[in-house]
């Protein structure tokens, strides 16, 4: 009986197990294997070069600048998106009228594909917003994608426009699950609004904060779609993210082995970041 059930459960698990293994797990090992070769992606032989690719990565200025951009983009997003989403959620939860209308307005951009978001902001910065200067009589530089110094700000604008509403929803759900007795008790004790926010809201929101911080960081580290239709990694290399750099190296530059080494570093970093954040933030949750 036990054996028969084991077999039947096995039949249920195996299809998913196999598809998952072929589609994701094996590619991960392939990436590691290729990263030790100088394969060009075309020829049959894949010459083994040991850790040469990884050593080259350290000396590669393009690779370093791609990481530097990715890190700046990630930190910017994590800070802006978390704070804005939390403040928006608190504002929407404070008893204002037509809450659902606001919720929809903030949420809709995240339904749009990142490729489209990139293009929309490309046009916003280059064609639509400069027109405001004429109307307002000001001289603000809206061409954020035009210069290496402002391209990060432009991409942060586009990305935050897309995602703030999404994380706001998570915070909103978190806020609505905080028992209101806590606030009443604090009020009776004479705690002001700001004190209540930092002593009740923030600690009680710890699980939501974990979700948002991990989600935003890992999502930003993987940025690619947004760049394809907006900056194409430019101007120069100012907005080349690590995935974008891997793509150009491997597909356009025909350096599959070297590109794989880049992929491996990203997988490793993402894994590490997720693990450290979940662990670190979970600890705070327990203390709270």
């Amino acid at each position: 009986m036990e054996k028969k059930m084991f077999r039947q459960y096995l039949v249920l698990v195996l299809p998913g197990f196999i598809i998952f293994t072929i589609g994701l797990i094996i590619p991960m090992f392939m990436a590691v294997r290729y990263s030790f070769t100088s394969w060009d992606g075309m020829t049959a032989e894949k010459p083994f070069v040991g850790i040469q690719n990884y050593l080259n990565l350290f000396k590669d200025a393009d690779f370093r600048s791609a990481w530097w951009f990715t890190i700046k983009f990630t930190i910017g997003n994590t800070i802006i998106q978390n704070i804005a989403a939390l403040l928006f959620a608190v504002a929407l939860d404070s008893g204002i009228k037509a809450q659902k209308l606001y919720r929809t307005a903030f949420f809709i951009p995240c339904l749009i594909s990142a490729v489209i978001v990139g293009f929309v902001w490309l046009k916003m910065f280059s064609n639509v917003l400069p027109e405001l200067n004429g109307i307002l009589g000001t001289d603000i530089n809206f061409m954020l994608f035009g210069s290496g110094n402002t391209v990060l700000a432009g991409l942060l604008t586009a990305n935050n426009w897309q995602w703030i509403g999404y994380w706001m929803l998570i915070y909103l759900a978190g806020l609505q699950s905080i028992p209101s007795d806590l606030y009443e008790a604090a009020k009776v004790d004479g705690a002001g609004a700001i004190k209540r926010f930092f002593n009740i809201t923030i600690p009680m929101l710890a699980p939501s904060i974990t979700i948002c911080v991990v989600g935003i960081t890992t999502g930003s580290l993987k940025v690619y779609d947004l760049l394809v239709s907006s900056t194409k990694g430019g101007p120069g290399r100012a907005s080349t993210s690590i995935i974008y750099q891997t793509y150009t190296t491997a597909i356009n530059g025909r350096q599959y082995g070297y590109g794989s080494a880049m992929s491996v570093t990203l997988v490793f970093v993402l894994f590490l970041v997720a693990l450290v954040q979940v662990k670190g933030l979970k600890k705070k949750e327990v203390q709270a």
Partner: protein
Amino acid sequence: MSGKKKNKKDNDIVAQPYTKTTFLTQIVMSVFALLFVAPLFIIINYSFKTKKELYLSSPLSLPQSLNFDNYIKAFQKLNMGTTFVNTLLYTAVSVVILAVLCGTTAWAIARGKQKFFKFCYIYFIIGILIPYQALFLPIYIIGFNLHLTNTQFGIIFMYVATGVSFGVFLMNSFMSTVPLELEESARIDGCSVFRTYFSIVLPLLKPAMATLIIMQAFQIWNDYLLASLYVSKKQLKTLTVAIQSLFSAQVSDYTTAMAAIVISVLPIAILFICLQKYFIKGMTVGAVKG
């Protein structure tokens, strides 16, 4: 979150007095909301403008008349007849397969007592932490070697493979809502494992299924990376990929591109408006994926 608690909280909101601060908050949030919707209005506005209006009138002025030329042009340029059906087909089939697979897998993992099933749980969880975006290169190579690239089967296979770990995780977290007694009595009545799942467990998992389906449908519909890697044949292309080529081709005359954006966003926006409740629940639960 129990329904009771939520109701109570709703009542509290109603009972909250509408003070000066609330009024100020309302105004500030209205400004932000307008800023957020402004780009959407600009897209729609542009999509009705003629090429002449694009160069002569201000970008912020309204079009003189509602002309649908851009839409017709976008329809042709995107090869909508094909790309729309392709995207719909890939999304629908992948999502159905994911719903069936993730449900059965998660249930078997939750109920199987052998060590193998415990291992499977960890195996799938690790998958959530592996970003397929970072592995696009070997994903392309394995697809090429197995003759999966440029086939409908191949792209659907990849959508399932990259979505399954999250789906299993999501369904697994809902398994505790299925009472064991029901399953046991079904088994005593002689139901096989399969029948128990489909007649007892599956109906109870409906809300979780709705969440899973919405989450994945939305993601697959908007996917660019996998579709651009796996499909290069014209008759297999997806909407997002077609839109991206349109963007590169129509840099100056972007009124067509704007119409194309409206066309591609509309289905998902309508879906959102109809299923808002499930959607929001799905997004909140599914947040872990990021």
